Every structure is written in C-alpha cells, then in structure tokens.
C-alpha cells in the first residue's frame, strides 16, 4: 500500500502540489486523471525523489520514502516509467534491461524469462539499439526495464502519449494481466480514457495540485459527469 499524505512539492518557490493525499491499495491499478499542469507528473517525480518535498509523507507498506535518495526509493520497490519513456537510445535492449537489473536489489537477470514471456518482442530484438525502436516498442522496453527489478508498485507516467492506438490497447491489457497475475500495484497517470477503462480498478482525480475525488471504475463507467468536470470531456 502506497500512502501519500499532505504532500507539498514543486519547483523552486512555485508549489504545484498542495496538501495532496492519496492511498493506493496493494494489488490494485489506480489511475490518476486530471488536465495538463494539474500536478500529475510532479506527483510521480516527488514520489521518486526527483523533486524535493516541501512537506508531507510518503510510505510504501509502512516504510517511509520521503527524503530518501532516488536510487534508494527505486530499491525500496518503486518502479518508474517516466513520461517520454526515456530509454537509453544508444544501448541495446539487453543493456537497458541489464542496467535496471544492476540497480535493483536482486542485481541479476532472473526475471528475464518472465519478461520475455510477457513481451516476446524484446527477446527477438535483444541486441537491437533502443533508439531504433518505435515509440510503442520503446514504451514496452521502459515498462520491462521497470519490471525487471520486481517492484512492489509501478508508477506509469502517460504511457500512451505518442503511441499508436493498437499498441496502447495491447499494453493496457498486458499490464492489467500482469497486475492480476503477480499482485503488482500500479499507479497510472493517464489522460487516455480507454486505457483507464481497460486497466484501472480505482480512479482518482487531481485538480490544482490536490486530490478531488477517488472512486471505483464502476462509477466512472456509469457516470460521465466526473470526466466532464475534471477532464472537460
């Protein structure tokens, strides 16, 4: 369970998150939705320790994460797929995966067969440079790279951005499957409603750096008002 309480964070003097609190249940996929500039990416960066917190607490299964260095947060079991994927273009697929394994507590590639099972394309292109991949393929690599460290929770920042729709759906289905299969907790930051409907169990809405509403997917499916209010859809 990831617990975020009373978080204040931002860039220099400009605070983006104001008193943000959110609880993410273990084993569930929670989608965080909101318009651009509302603080979604800032939240994920704050969790990862990439932005200093002004105040607030973050804990994963009771272990406090706030104030830890980024690599410690990663090793504590937080996997992160950043916006824009940020794979290492000059590295091969294998090197990208190997790098993540080196950083993890396990320090080995024992997850590799499992990863290949989920994403067969990576095994086929193991020695290909990541820079030659399409956006969707890079996204798969970025997800695999995070999964190889066996995280307790996976943070995904707009994984569908700039990716062709067919692959979007494929990734959504696969992630939902992985979550069910392994009990992986996922925090998905997303604007793509289809992706959210495919994957999420719970939905949270963020506006102006604060949590506005949290509900189950069922409510979202039955009621368009929330989408209209928070996403202008």
């Amino acid at each position: 369970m990831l617990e975020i309480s009373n978080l204040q964070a931002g860039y220099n003097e400009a605070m983006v998150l104001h008193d943000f609190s959110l609880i993410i249940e273990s084993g569930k996929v929670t989608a965080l939705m909101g318009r651009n500039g509302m603080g979604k990416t800032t939240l994920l960066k704050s969790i990862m320790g990439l932005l200093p917190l002004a105040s607030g607490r973050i804990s994963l299964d009771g272990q406090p994460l706030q104030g830890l260095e980024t690599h410690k947060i990663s090793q504590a079991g937080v996997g992160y797929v950043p916006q824009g994927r940020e794979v290492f273009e000059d590295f091969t697929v294998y090197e990208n995966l190997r790098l993540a394994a080196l950083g993890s507590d396990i320090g080995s590639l024992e997850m590799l067969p499992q990863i290949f099972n989920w994403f067969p394309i990576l095994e086929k292109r193991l020695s290909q440079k990541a820079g030659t991949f399409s956006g969707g393929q890079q996204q798969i690599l970025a997800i695999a790279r995070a999964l190889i460290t066996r995280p307790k929770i996976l943070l995904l920042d707009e994984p569908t951005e700039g990716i062709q729709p067919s692959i979007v759906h494929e990734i959504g289905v696969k992630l939902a499957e992985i979550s069910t299969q392994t009990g992986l907790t996922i925090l998905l930051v997303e604007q793509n409603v289809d992706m959210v409907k495919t994957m999420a169990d719970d939905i949270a809405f963020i506006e102006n750096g604060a949590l506005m509403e949290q509900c189950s997917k069922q409510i979202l499916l039955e009621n368009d008002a929330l989408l209209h209010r928070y996403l202008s859809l």
Partner: protein
Amino acid sequence: MDFILPLVDALSYILILVLIALGLMIVFGMMGVINMAHGELFMIGAYVMVVCQNSGLPFLAGLIIAPLFVGLLGLIIESLLIRHIYLRPLDTILATWGLSIALKQLIVLWFGPESQSIASPVDSMVTLGTFSYPAYRLLVMGAAILLIGGTFWTFLKTDFGLQARAVIARPDTAATLGINTRHLYRWSFVIGTALAGLAGALIAPTISVDPQMGLGYLIPGFLSILVGGAGPLAGVLAGGAAVGGTNSLLTVWISPVAAQIAVFLLAILVIRMRPEGLLGGKK
C-alpha cells in the same frame, strides 16, 4: 628515413595526451566538472616517482604507488570539494583552479621550484635498420596503449561502464532505476585522477619534472577533448591525435613556439566552427 623519428615522437606525445585527456573527459563528460587541477595530479604522479627514487624503491613500485596515491588524493578531493559543487559547473573551474594553485605551491614548498630528474629504468636503444629509439619511450607508448584500451574496455564493456554511460546520458532516469549516481561520480573521478597519476609517473623519466609541468599538459588536454567532441569516448582519440599530432610535427618543422601558437589557434577555430567536436553527433 628522417621522417620516421618525428612521426614516432608525435605518436608518443599523442598517446600521453590522450591518457591525460581521458581522465579529464571522464570527469567532464560525466559530471560536467572541468578539473583545472588535473595537470597537478599528473605532476604529483611524477613527484611520487621522485620520492620513490630518493628512497631507493624500485621503479615498478613507483608505478604502482603513483596511481594509488593520486587516486586516493582524487577520492579526498571528490569528497571535500567536487561533490559540493556538482551542480555549479562554472564554479568547479574556479574551485579546482584554487586547488591547482595550492597543490603546485605544496610541491614548491616540499621539493623546491627547481626541476627534478628521474633515471630511466631502461637505458638501451631499440635499433631497426637506420632507425633507433630509446627503449623506455617505446615501453611508455606500449603502456599508454594498454591503459587507453583498458579505460575504453572499462567504460564500454563492464557493468560499471554501462552504469557510468547511463548516468552520462540520463542521470535522473538512471537514478530511478536504482543506480547510485553519486557513487558512480565518485569512482569515475577517482579513476580519472588515478589515470593522471599513472601517466605522470610513466613519463617522468622522459621529461623534466617541475612544479609548473601540469599546465603544459592541461590546456592541450582540454583542447583535445573539445576538438574531438565531449560526447563519445572515441572523441578523445581524434582530438588527441589532431592536437598532439599537429603540435609535434609543427614543432619539428617550424619551431616549438610557432607550433604551440598554431595548434591553439587551430583548436579554437575547430571548437568555434564545430562546437560538438570532430566526432560529436547532433547534440
């Protein structure tokens, strides 16, 4: 056959320059830190040989002690100085400049300003037909090639190198994958300084060792990096060859002063026209 000697001399200078530039490049490429004291670390490597010679230690012992001692110095410098100013690249120039003044003066206070000489462990000449060259210089060239190769291997083929290159490319992303960037910065810095120390120790018998010797290698070293391109490691080879080669050959054909002036001006021209360096990509 009188053109072979200058060519071998040029190659010898290029190799030493590349060795020094490699250390600078690791630190600059990875952390954006310009280490103005790199030349002094190179000098201290040579002075370790002076101490070893004075205390009767064998030459090889000096070659082992020099990189260890200078590497340790690098570790101290990183902990006390560099790590506090990683995010202020221009300040690293100033702070390491202060360090370079202090280190130079320490050596002056300890050994005096005069130059020292180190006896070469091998006196013989290698003769091939009409061409004859000091054996030790050839040994230095061989050792430099091994060291350059070793450094490339470390950064291109090992797990350490993989992590280091990841940190160069995307430091934040590397950290989110659990890579301890601080740790990598520190050990890369130490590797860079140890290389400088070993380079200084290796060529000590072939040059006059004095407190001012560092600068004469620092600036050409930097120009090599900038000319070659600070991105890919191979840029150092191209830059070192361009700067070192031009310098050595012009020294023979015109004069040392004209050569230095010409090389500096050419280097500045290249840096201005191709800021990404000869081998640099689109960045």
